């Protein structure tokens, strides 16, 4: 494919940071998924981008969206990197309270009370 002068310096194909993986390994990773790093997992052997994600997650829990914005990686790429780090045991993922829990009154009541007290 011949670039037509629109290709900016520093632009990389999305699958390059994602180590050739084009799709997340799990459908379930969401922009609001909380990522928690396992501090006991070795970081050597990780690709530079996966290393950056781990390094960013080590101090505490963050959402996929925050990691994406902080590291200036597209959301889809961040999901791919995170999904592989979940598979390898480096990250634990906690998904948003799913649609099935829409009817969880206790959760909604807690959210409502918290909002009213803010």
């Amino acid at each position, binding site marked *: 494919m011949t670039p037509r002068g629109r290709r900016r310096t520093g632009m990389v*194909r*999305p699958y390059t940071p994602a180590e050739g993986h084009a799709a997340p390994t799990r459908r379930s990773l969401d922009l609001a998924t909380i990522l928690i790093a396992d501090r006991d997992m070795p970081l050597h052997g990780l690709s530079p981008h996966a290393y950056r994600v781990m390094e960013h997650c080590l101090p505490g*829990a963050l959402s996929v969206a925050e990691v994406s914005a902080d*590291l200036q990686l597209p959301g889809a790429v961040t999901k791919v990197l995170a999904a592989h780090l979940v598979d390898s045991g480096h990250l634990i993922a906690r998904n948003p309270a799913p649609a099935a829990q829409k009817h969880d009154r206790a*959760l909604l009541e807690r959210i*409502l009370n918290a*909002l009213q007290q803010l």
Partner: protein
Amino acid sequence: MHSNSSDGHYLDAGVTPVKLVVMGPFAVGKTTFVGAVSEIKPASTEERLTQAGELVDDLRGLEDKDTTTVAHDFGRLTLTEDIVLYLFGTPGQPRFAAMIEDLMYGALGGVVLVDTRRVAESWDAMERLEEAGLAYVLAVNEFPNSPKYTEAELRTALDLDPWTPLVMCDVRKRESAKAVLIALVSHLLSRSSLEPAS
């Protein structure tokens, strides 16, 4: 960018995220709304029109970049020691449907912002949410020069279901934006008492 680990934007490992979407037409005040209630400086994450599985053909469509990427603005609000709310602002245009579907997946509900000078531009967002089966509230962002209508007039113009709440707000004000979120969660609760648990 807040990539500095000392700025306190990290969360406790025990939190469960909940997600809401904030939708509406261009320049209706989505980012301002998210910023008004967010405890972090609103950030944005870029999404491409192509789905993750199609990223191998990443340069396709770049000629018309405006239609291939969209930024989701987001903010965060820690509600309790174990619940953190994420708000995602996203355009409602049909050409972003795939991305928005992804964003709506797992959301508790939505806020649709309305500008009374162009009420019909909020229809796309309402339709997206209805198709996804998500409950929402309409929040009329009162711009200084916007025409004033009665609630009945707005409900007719929006072709709104009688049970969907319509609230007035000033998206720049935290209390006002918070009242919209309270209206939404109250609405979700009333819905949950009407429908059998699945």
